[in-house]
């Protein structure tokens, strides 16, 4: 007699069900050895057959007991659908299947009495994206020649740093005809228009983080693409800080200021300036919430660099010393400009919100010429860990918000002075070039992306709830974990190579989009190149409606 009770958690309550075919299984043990979530286990099953073979009832029974693979009924160790079991099974005997009848959101809250947390991405909105409703519709042909993507010289450079208007430049002409600068000019780095977004060394495994850093160095040194990477909040290894590759790194400071002690202490040994400093105020995936690094991922080196013991590490939702935008400008911008002797541009990252334009307008005034960029982060991006309710129900999409900011600057004749960088689900469909291009046409100077980088490395998570377990430290791909056994699944060379190759491909694709509209430099604000078959989208973004 089985003793299951009504409220016992069963497989049908969980988001994924294991589809297992015992007749194909050889009990090689690979699936159970590979599953990092402890979501499957070995169990013995009884087989019993009662039968009669005679002409009259002659009861006989046959009994056997066989080991099989079973899904674990647990709201803690449950299947995330990562599919590692399916990947390693030599016989196609096992795979996770999405469970449409899941009661997980209810059962988990009922049993745990705590909010649900996860990593990854937006799961509720599977509707079509605004960017997919937009096409590059202006194709130059009779009126003006399109460019040949292959042979034309393109200038794919975006500014990181405060751009002064012509009147603000202070030049005089020397006798030899050269221009001389008469005053201190704000630093500007012209970089590739796609920044690898801020993912911290706590969020990522060391192999992943180093793989990304290596890819950036390789793209610069071997391929000539001036790609930059943002460190994320949580420190930077000293060896990188004191290497020549620091010049490719944008250092992030967030509300926890984690890791900055070591950055400051490394300054005397730095041989290069960093590419920039990014002040993180908010994150698009969980706006209004601070960083969250679950204790499972606070490895020893993270504890050391961050200067904290092993615990769930929360960064406050706002900078503890800031009370107003004015103060943020004065304190954070001034101090970080000063820290690097005004040689390094300093930008700010905020979560897209109903008030983003006001914030941007305030910064655009920038009387001290110290605002080196406005990074606007919308929903649909990834995160290492967050409360599910934040991921699923808060935030603002990026497209219209970026457009609003750009048009606000245009209205004042100040577009381009504070570079606009946009993120939030860009490259979600795998085509970052198209997304980046459209965002630039709408007014972004460039874009940044993190989640897509994980997918280049081998992340199998998706927006339909597959895996999304970055918060657990049990990443089956070795990307968002600090456990050596899992991290070592990841080959840092391969990570770097995949990123390099993706960027090379994307570079070609960006040119393939620039050429038809006849732009040899980035098409910032060229909304005339975009059309939409969706009237609402077209009207909202002030682009041509086509049908």
């Amino acid at each position, binding site marked *: 007699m089985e003793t299951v009770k009504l409220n016992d958690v069963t497989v049908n309550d969980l988001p994924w069900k294991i589809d297992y075919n015992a007749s194909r299984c050889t009990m090689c043990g*690979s699936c*159970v050895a590979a599953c990092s979530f402890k979501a499957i286990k070995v169990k013995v099953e009884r087989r019993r057959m009662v039968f009669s073979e005679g002409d009259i009832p002659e009861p006989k029974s046959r009994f056997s007991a066989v080991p099989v693979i079973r899904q674990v009924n647990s709201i803690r160790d449950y299947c995330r659908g990562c599919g590692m079991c399916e990947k390693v099974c030599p016989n196609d005997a096992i795979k996770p299947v999405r469970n449409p009848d899941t009661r997980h959101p209810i059962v988990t809250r009922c049993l745990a009495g705590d909010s649900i947390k996860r990593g990854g991405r937006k799961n509720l909105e599977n509707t079509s994206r605004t960017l997919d409703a937009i096409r590059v519709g202006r194709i130059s042909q009779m009126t003006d020649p399109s460019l040949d993507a292959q042979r034309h010289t393109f200038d794919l450079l975006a500014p990181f740093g405060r751009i002064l208007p012509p009147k603000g430049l202070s030049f005089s002409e020397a006798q030899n005809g050269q221009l001389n600068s008469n005053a201190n000019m704000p630093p500007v780095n012209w970089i590739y228009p796609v920044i690898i977004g801020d993912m911290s060394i706590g969020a990522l495994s060391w192999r992943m983080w180093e793989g990304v850093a290596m890819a950036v160095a390789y793209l610069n040194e071997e391929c000539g693409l001036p790609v930059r990477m943002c460190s994320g909040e949580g420190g930077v290894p000293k060896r990188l800080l004191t290497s020549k590759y620091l010049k490719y790194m944008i250092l992030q400071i967030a509300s926890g200021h984690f890791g900055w002690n070591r950055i400051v202490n490394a300054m005397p040994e730095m041989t290069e300036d960093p590419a920039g400093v990014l002040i993180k105020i908010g994150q698009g995936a969980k706006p209004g919430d601070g960083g969250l690094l679950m204790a499972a991922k606070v490895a020893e080196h993270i504890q050391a660099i961050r200067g904290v013991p092993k615990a769930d590490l929360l960064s406050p939702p706002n900078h503890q010393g800031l009370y107003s935008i004015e103060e943020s400008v004065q304190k954070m911008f001034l101090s970080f400009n000063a820290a690097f002797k005004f040689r390094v541009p300093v930008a700010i990252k905020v979560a897209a919100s109903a008030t983003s334009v006001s914030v941007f307008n305030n910064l655009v005034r920038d009387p001290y010429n110290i605002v080196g960029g406005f990074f606007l982060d919308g929903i649909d991006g990834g995160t290492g860990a967050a409360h599910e309710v934040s991921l699923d129900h808060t935030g603002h999409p990026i497209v219209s918000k970026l457009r609003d900011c750009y048009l606000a600057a245009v209205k004042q004749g100040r577009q381009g002075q504070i570079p606009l960088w946009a993120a939030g689900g860009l490259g979600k469909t795998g085509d970052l070039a198209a997304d980046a291009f459209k965002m630039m046409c709408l007014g972004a100077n460039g874009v940044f992306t993190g989640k897509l980088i994980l997918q280049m490395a081998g992340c199998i998570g998706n927006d339909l709830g597959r895996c999304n377990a970055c918060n657990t430290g049990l990443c089956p791909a070795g990307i968002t974990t600090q456990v050596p*056994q899992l991290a070592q699944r990841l080959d840092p060379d391969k990570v770097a190579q995949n990123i390099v190759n993706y960027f090379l491909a994307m570079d070609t694709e960006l040119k393939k989009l620039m050429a038809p509209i006849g732009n040899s430099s980035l098409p910032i604000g060229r909304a005339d190149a975009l059309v939409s078959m969706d009237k609402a989208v077209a009207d909202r973004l002030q682009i041509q409606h086509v049908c």
Partner: protein
Amino acid sequence: MAAQIQGFDENNQRISTQDLLMQIYSALVQGENEFEVLSSGHHDIGGPLWRENGQPLKFRVKNPGQRVGSFGLEGTQIIVDGPAPADAGWLNAGAELIIKGDSGDTTAHCAASGKIYVAGRVGTRSGSLMKHDPAFSAPELWVLKNTGSFSFEFMGGGTAVICGIGCEELESILGDRSCMGMVGGTIYVRGAVRNLPGEVLLLDLDEADIAYLKAGLPEFLAKVDRSQHLDTLSDFSRWKKITAKTYEERQLSKSTRISMREFRLNKWVGDGGIFGDLIKDDYDFTAGLVNTGDNRLKIPHWRNKAFCAPCEASCPSSIPTQDRINLLRKGEYKKAIELVLNYSPFPGSVCGEVCPNPCMDSCTRQFIDHSVAMPALGKLSLEASSPQPKTDSGKKVAVIGGGPGGLSAAWQLRLLGHAATVFEADKEVGGKLRQVIPTDRLPADTLSAEIQRVKDMGVEIKTNEAINSDMFASLQNDYDAVVIASGAHNPVVIPFPGHERLVKGLEFLKDVNNGKNPTVGEKVVVIGAGNAGMDVCLGAYAMGAKKVTAVDIQRPAAFRKEIDHFEKLGGSIEWPVFTDRVDEKGLHTKDGRLIEADTIIIAIGERPDLSYIPLEWLDDRGMAMVDACGQLVKAPGVFAIGDTIKPGLLTHAIGHGREAAQYIDSYLAGNAPVAKVKPPMISQECLSKELFRPQNRGRFKADANQETNRCLSCGTCRDCEMCLEACPEGAIRRVQKEDGGFEYVSDAEYCIGCGICAGLCPCGIWGMEQVV
């Protein structure tokens, strides 16, 4: 005489291109083969034209417009006296085009055959998309000076010769970024070139190249009237040639970048990378999804006896039935039935008869069919011979009380080699086993046989020796240690009105067992439905009661077996019942009901009488105040067990006796006793019960000798070798030890940490250490 084609009319006005070309067509129809054309920028002069008879056509053109010679066919020669504008020789299909001056942009664009000679420069994008159709001769473009930028883009075939005359100062005689997208053909260049794409090669000439130029240059120079440059151009050391990489070479050149590994080792931050000072990791190693050794996500451990079997864990006497049965399974019958005597001197009386058998309540086998038949196993040991005691230690211990606890302590002390003297207040030892347990539950023969076995072990017994405080003091003096095991014999009575009418349960039972036949009325109410209450109820029926009702303020605490027995006799239990008062009618409840009774017996427990030890040795509940080893906190060397420290079952007292003996053993050896903690009970989750075929309960018959097939051996390896067979990697070995024991070992070199061993172990021995 050549046809004269004029680009002007009689009024010297320029005619249209169409009119001019129409003149050429009509002259052609009239049989003209040669044409002298005075053009004024008229376009498309020279082709595509032909004679039906195949005779060659010759044009001399002055001042042509765009696309002179375009689409020209083989057999057509066009000589331009001077420069030509854009697109000269465009789509040349075989004509010879001689331009005696400079030529404009996109000269020879898409030329597929024929030859184009230019006496000066050509403009931007010249030679782009030149191609060679193998059905025709290859196109050629000879240029005396240089080309504009972006020339030879997407060139697919043919030959171009760029002589670089007068271009010594130029940075590139092909302008900037020529040859983009070039996939075929050859370009000979004499002079500097720069910014060539990666898809082409800039090579030195070989013999065939020199032969080609040697043959072609004089003809070219002659046709453009520049033969004076022949010597200059014949210094072939100054020439290079540009060819496109082959498809295969392109595939190779895609990987000309260094590998990421080389980059990491040779260029990236050295000595272990950016985390090299923080983490030891070899990036040349990448783990698989399934690994052995340290890369396993979990590691199996053979944890034999790390957990108690449920029977052992729940047995207050800690009897390890699984060990008994493993001995039986090995055929060591004698050892098996004697084993239990190391734990209890009363396997027959207690395990076999009166114990409620908590072991069976927790037995894993009940989840398969029925619990293992513990009473039957206990009875097997009734006749078992005693274990051999250790040699005499010379130490002696006094045991106050000859009940099951005291006798257990004395028995164990003897086994440990100490002398034990039991002081019993009653006329015979046995305590409550003898005094209060109804004889139909415990046959007198069984009990006396086991008591005799204790006596035979050499335990000295002094009966009718009630201890008072003076005697206690002298015991403390005379003995090396003292065990207080006098039990609880003071019945608890609640002082509600009429309580003086109550019969005390313990006394009633003692009277029954002593043959005093206490009288009871027809209707009896027993207050208290615990196990003692049930004994009282049975006693009441035995003494002639017709209807016995047990009441309790809470769910009856008696074991099911006892209640069943009682109810079979017609008894009933009521609860919750709160007594308000008792009188001659019976028991009045607080809610105003009357439960009629002639006799009311109270059996809600007893308290120990410890008046023979100092009051300050007791806790505030009147029990002996002891530490975790049962030693009196205020009197080292004095140990208290059983009901003197906490009300319990007979088996609790027996267990306490054994524990106390062990603690006393350390105490006597001069060591401070250390409390023993039983290993935790094994979780049912760990046991693969499914490997056991359930027996049909309907046909079930308990047989102690068949239990070897039924006991799972929870927590103790049964040596079945399931793991050995099932391990997919063959990583498990069975190691025979010299002492006759054995162990199973998983080899980290082969084990992948799948957990099959743990998942199917019937005994729960293999456990997985979760590394991740």
